[in-house]
């Protein structure tokens, strides 16, 4: 077992907080991606297209 000395609480708190912030950032980005993909899918299903798609005839 690693010995973190008398200030172990400060070290553990630093690593826990950093892990939490990074996890929150990753979760936000992943959830945002799936939300945008879902909305785009819904719009395409309803036949809505972007102007550039119309120009390309796609």
């Amino acid at each position, binding site marked *: 077992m*690693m*010995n*973190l*000395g*008398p*200030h*172990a609480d*400060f*070290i553990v*708190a*630093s*690593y826990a*907080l*950093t892990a939490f*912030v*990074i996890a*929150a*950032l*990753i979760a*936000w*980005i*992943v959830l*945002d*991606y799936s939300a*945008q*993909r879902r*909305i*785009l899918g819904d*719009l395409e299903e*309803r036949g*809505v*297209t*972007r*102007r550039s798609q119309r120009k390309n005839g796609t």
Partner: protein
Amino acid sequence: MAVIDLANPTRFLTLVNRVLPWLIAATVALFAVGLYHAMNAPDDYQQGATVKIMFLHVPGAWLGMMGWGLMSVAALGTLVWRHPLADVAGKAAAPIGAAFTFICLVTGSLWGRPTWGTYWVWDARLTSVLVLFLLYLGVLALYWTAEDPGRGSRAAAVLTLVGAVNLPIIKFSVDWWNTLHQPASILRMGGAAIDPSILWPLLIMAVAFTFLFFTLHLAAMRNEILRRRVRSMRLMQARELAEASA
């Protein structure tokens, strides 16, 4: 493919989809190696085991500043060339840079209590980094609350360029003023002042955090491009409905 071709959002999305899995794998591998070496690094002769906080605090500080530097280049692209991808890059970097600056501030505070005897002092380094964090919040407020996204982006770009003045102040604050925060010990004339047994884990962790930053940034840029497509499609839909009912 020429580099300029990547400035096209559709081509950029293709590139991001190809590169992201490799970046994620490299980031995870770098963190595994970095954390292993960080946990097995020897205690500092003065600070003891609290030196392990440095492996989070220093990369957090570097990336908080690098994020603003990246946003400043993107702001130039937004204001001078009005390139949409530059604006996407700036907007996507803001929350990530803010998160790393937050990590820097809080881990610094948690490191300061056992080593300095206080969580916070209003010295030049700590205050200028707090100002950087507040500037990040200001830019995010402009991006997220502006009714007209174009106007919000231009205002955020101006604030970003004005805020870039703070970067050299942060870097040289420890030389220009008498601060409780220690002077530069890695990027300084005469080489690093840290023992290699601690310096190497720090550098590996810094590279791991940098990879994490760019992985998150590319993923956030992809989200922003998709969000703009959604907005453009909704506008088209609304226009068509208005024309049909007229």
